[in-house]
């Protein structure tokens, strides 16, 4: 090929040229650094100040099935606000991953309120992605918050979080297929081989397994966590435990692929419509308690409207409607009295109004210890990915 031969020298020069450009570009980009948000936001955490009367639009992001069909409309009528209520949070990590780059830049993509679980709220706060509440703007919340949720360890002064609903992680069981399940250790019973699922949430599954072995989860060491993870690993490897799943364990329970599951209290009630034999079972060794909290992200366009909403849902009458619908633990006092008049059966529900007795062995959701935490996370991840 004549053209080729003539152009060989030119080709080589061009190649060197291109290669140099590539190297220069790489170094330039490296120098600019990558803005993947390491280290969180700088500066003080701001307080989202309320400004006069609430007006305009409100954007709330919440988990699905957490609100009945009427509350939002009624709130809009009463307050004059226009509300966009989106049920687009299915997973704490997923919503974090979606929003993190925006939050790093101080924007919330229009959201005024997010609802995230305790540990995610703390994580976001530590990274500077949340704003402090203007306490003077939410008197109803302060007044009606149930006592045992007033000073959680992750936000002792409730400066940036207000519980939406609380819940319990325990056992969800198909009573017709597995009538004798009462303890977490039952998930290792060969009777139920291949019909057990556990949650892929490290902070729910492993503490429960630890509790079943008598460990004090609040003060557990990394070794305790690792031992529990090993126990889980063996059970998953042998097929005793069918799967480590996210929220979609409800699918497995609904169609009978699982008869025993580690799951969340409110879900059990949702499943009963499809299979009345499914029940939430408080394990002998107790449950894990957590709450999903309303938080205000940085860059929220309308915090004043957010406060209005928070006050509204903390009114016992309004909360009663929500609590009846979603069957999780309500954080608002005064609701049980309302139910006692209108729906006594619901007033007795341990799922919505758990008594001290019922929850006596329960622990709040712990985090892995900072010392050795990485190893714990990696070990658990290895189990969830069949490694």
């Amino acid at each position, binding site marked *: *090929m004549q053209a080729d031969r003539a152009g060989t020298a030119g080709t080589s020069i061009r190649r060197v040229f291109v290669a140099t450009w590539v190297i220069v*570009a*790489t170094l330039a*980009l*490296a120098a600019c*650094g*990558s803005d*993947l*948000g*390491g*280290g*969180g936001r700088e500066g003080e955490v701001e307080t989202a100040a309320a400004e006069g009367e609430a007006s305009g639009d409100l954007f709330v992001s919440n988990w699905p099935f957490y609100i009945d069909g009427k509350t939002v409309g009624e709130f809009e009528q009463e307050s004059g606000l226009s509300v966009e209520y989106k049920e687009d949070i299915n997973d704490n*990590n*997923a919503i*974090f*991953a979606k929003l*993190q780059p925006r939050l790093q830049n101080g924007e919330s993509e229009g959201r005024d309120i997010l609802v995230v679980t305790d540990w995610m709220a703390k*994580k976001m706060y*530590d*990274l500077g992605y949340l704003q402090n509440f203007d306490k003077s703007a939410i008197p109803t919340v302060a007044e009606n918050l149930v006592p045992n949720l007033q000073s959680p360890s992750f936000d002792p002064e409730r400066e940036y979080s207000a519980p939406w609903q609380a819940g319990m992680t325990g056992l969800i069981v198909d009573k017709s297929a597995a009538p004798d399940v009462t303890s977490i250790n039952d998930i290792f019973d060969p009777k139920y081989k*291949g019909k057990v699922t556990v949650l*892929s949430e490290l902070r729910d599954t492993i503490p429960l397994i630890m509790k079943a072995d008598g460990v004090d989860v609040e003060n557990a060491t990394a070794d305790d966590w690792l031992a529990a993870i090993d126990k889980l690993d063996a059970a*998953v*490897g042998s*097929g005793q435990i*069918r*799967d*480590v799943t996210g929220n979609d364990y409800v*699918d497995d329970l609904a*169609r*009978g*692929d699982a008869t025993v599951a580690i799951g969340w209290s409110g879900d059990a009630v949702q499943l009963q419509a499809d299979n009345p034999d499914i029940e939430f079972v408080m394990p002998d060794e107790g449950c894990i308690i957590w709450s999903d909290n309303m938080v205000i992200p940085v860059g929220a366009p309308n915090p004043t409207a957010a406060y209005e909403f928070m006050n509204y849902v903390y009114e016992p009458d309004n909360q009663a409607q929500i609590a009846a619908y979603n069957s999780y633990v309500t954080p608002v006092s005064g609701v049980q009295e309302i139910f006692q008049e209108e729906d006594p059966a619901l007033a007795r529900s341990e799922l919505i109004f758990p008594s001290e007795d019922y929850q006596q062995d329960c622990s709040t959701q712990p985090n892995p210890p900072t010392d050795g935490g990485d190893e714990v*996370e*990696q070990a658990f*991840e*290895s*189990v*969830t*990915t*069949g*490694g």
Partner: protein
Amino acid sequence: MTSGRRRVPYLLLAPGLLWLAIFFVLPLFFMGIIAVEEGSLEEGFSLTWRFANFTDSISRFDTQFVRSFIYAGIATALCLVIAYPLAYAIAFKAGRWKNALLLAVIAPFFTTYLIRTLAWQTILFDNSPIVDALKFVGAVPDDGRVLDTTGSVIAGLTYNFLPFMILPIYASLEQMDRRLIEAGRDLYSSARTTFLKVTLPISMPGVIAGTLLTFIPAVGDYINADLLGSSNQAMIGNVVQGQYLDIKDYPIAAALSFVLMAMILVVVAVYIKFAGSEALMGDEEERGAA
């Protein structure tokens, strides 16, 4: 050759290649830099040129890497075996049903990947009528299951990537000069020999394209493993997703991605060497030289 003529290919290429350069190559640069960082989201990431991330990712997830290549390999082989007869049927035997059959091949696409895979959940879950029937005839042991097993994941992969294998093979069979087949039949008296010596070789570009279009996305897939498998079937795609979204160890996630791409490229390079590069690259030079 006028200078205008020389410019034509570049003009043709420019818009598309520019798009790819900005939205594919550039992000990969960033990914490459992240892959050699270390740190955490809380404390910040710093560029320490930590190439150990690459070896770390291989050693930590070797099981999943191997598993992904095996699953994808089996699925691709199955796809080939299933797709070729169908492509052949449509190209040569379908007559007036040709377009209808093509329609039938492509149509499932339009219900979206997730829905198709979810439908298999409905078909294969433990108490479904199909599984009951399979147990009845003994294909599945009484205490066994179909869903959440290696089999169901591979079946899902095969099913979902079938069109990617059918269409390229069909395309290359369809534009074959029929006279070659007639000549072949005159030369070799049996239909089978004609097929092996004439049709199959000429359809190779389609086979190769189909194989690659099936194997490569299958290796990185995670939906099938997610919806049809248990945690024991997790593929490398699941790991990358988990690293990125749950653990948020971005350097390892980025390193994993590069290792995966490198492995795929190695496999593809070997495959092309073996199968003949002009079939893939459509290298006019080699054609001209031949």
